[in-house]
């Protein structure tokens, strides 16, 4: 039977549409345990490819005949081999083009809303890793917030919309993924904004983004108001876009809150995190739509694949916003934390411009989930 190729985009659509899929993941057991393709109705079987070199007969009875089957490996090669063996055994199967490497890098643009005067805001869902970037478009100009390393996608998207990228922001110095902010700014001539308290050791020029700064996109009315909200990092800054959207960076997520330990200062920053979430955010309109920089679990996705919720609803439902007791809050964000993101210290060094490993190395460093949140 036939062997088909499935792209990361096609798998993403299955996640968004809550379709069924049977995933035969032929990576190592450790790699599978650590990180896999998540979907609400996905089923899994993990058998390393090197257990299948003598044939697939032994696993045939574990593979359903009534479901679409996708074979997945790290880079593609092994999944093609296993898919061909299954095909010879009479099954129709697909393999994931580019493997988990492509899954980690795939970005799916989703429109999250309209702005005044015909402007738009898009969320770029990095489905495999749980990172979210944003593009604000207004009157021929675009601003990008929390860009990923795959900068072509943003540049091409702006071109397809016929807009010029004029401003690029990072809400904070990221520890889980490599920022593409500086690269896009260099390529397009845009201004690259960073919170100065997170940029103390950077090796390049940037524009200092202070709390209270206002940057106008297009020459009409789309303003980006910076709101200093430390806690995940000391410089962490949120943005209120068009008085409607709250880009919360890694401070507040849909079903979790930011962890304060990735710069090694959990104890020091607990107070800042609490103040940001319980005082500074409380002072904002509950009608603001929160757009975070990450999701942790697939349940945080809306029907259309976007990750967004009104601030008022999060105050009611997000556990991390409902812990009045100081000591309990401190425990939640400093004890029993999940493992840190892969290579997080080196990633911080890259984002400061201190080291620049070759692309393949950067890709490897980003393997795995983001792990920036605590629940």
């Amino acid at each position, binding site marked *: 039977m036939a062997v088909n190729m499935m792209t990361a985009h096609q798998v993403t659509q299955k996640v968004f549409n809550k379709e069924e899929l049977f995933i035969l993941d032929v990576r*190592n057991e*450790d790699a599978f345990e650590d990180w896999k393709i998540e979907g609400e109705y996905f089923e899994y079987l993990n058998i*390393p490819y*090197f257990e299948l*070199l003598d044939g697939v007969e032994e696993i045939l009875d574990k593979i359903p005949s009534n479901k679409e089957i996708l074979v997945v*490996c*790290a*880079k593609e090669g*092994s999944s093609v*081999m296993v898919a061909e063996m299954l095909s010879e055994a009479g099954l129709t199967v697909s393999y994931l083009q580019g493997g988990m490497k492509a899954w980690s890098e795939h970005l799916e643009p989703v429109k999250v809303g309209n702005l005044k005067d015909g402007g738009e805001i898009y969320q770029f869902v990095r489905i495999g890793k749980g990172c979210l970037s944003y593009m604000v478009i207004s009157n021929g100009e675009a601003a990008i917030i929390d860009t990923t390393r795959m900068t072509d996608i943003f540049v091409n998207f702006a071109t397809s919309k016929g807009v010029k990228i004029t401003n690029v922001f990072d809400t904070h110095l990221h520890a889980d993924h490599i920022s593409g902010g500086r690269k896009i700014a260099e390529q397009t001539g845009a201004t690259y904004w960073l919170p100065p308290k997170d940029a103390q050791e950077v090796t390049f020029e940037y524009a200092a983004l202070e709390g209270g700064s206002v940057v106008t996109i297009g020459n009409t009315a789309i303003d980006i108001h910076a709101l200093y909200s430390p806690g995940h990092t000391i410089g962490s800054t949120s943005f209120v876009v068009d008085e409607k959207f709250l880009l919360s960076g890694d401070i507040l997520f849909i079903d979790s809150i930011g962890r304060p330990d990735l710069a090694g200062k959990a104890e020091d920053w607990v107070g800042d995190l609490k103040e940001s979430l319980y005082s500074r955010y409380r002072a904002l309109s509950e009608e603001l739509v929160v757009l975070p920089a990450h999701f942790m679990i697939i349940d945080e996705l809306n029907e259309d694949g976007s990750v967004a919720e009104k601030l008022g609803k999060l105050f009611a439902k997000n556990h991390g916003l409902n812990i009045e007791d100081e000591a309990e809050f401190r425990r939640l964000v400093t004890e029993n934390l999940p493992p840190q993101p892969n290579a997080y210290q080196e990633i911080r060094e890259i984002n400061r411009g201190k080291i620049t490993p070759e692309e393949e190395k950067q890709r490897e460093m980003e393997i795995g989930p983001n792990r920036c949140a605590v629940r």
Partner: protein
Amino acid sequence: MDVSKVLDAKGLACPMPIVRTKKAMNELETGEILEIQATDKGAKSDLAAWAKSGGHELLKDTEENDVLKFWIKKS
């Protein structure tokens, strides 16, 4: 180390380093040592896991100038 055979798997992408390793191991006697040279980074965790599941002993592994070397003793 008394190496019985050297397998050059440099430049080969996954799954070939392990496919070749398995084949080479079949030609060895119990207790003999195979040296594998590879450049595919994934080989590191995969070869270790493969050796373990087959009962072979991974005696040593090194990385020098982007070349990974492994020494596996056949069970």
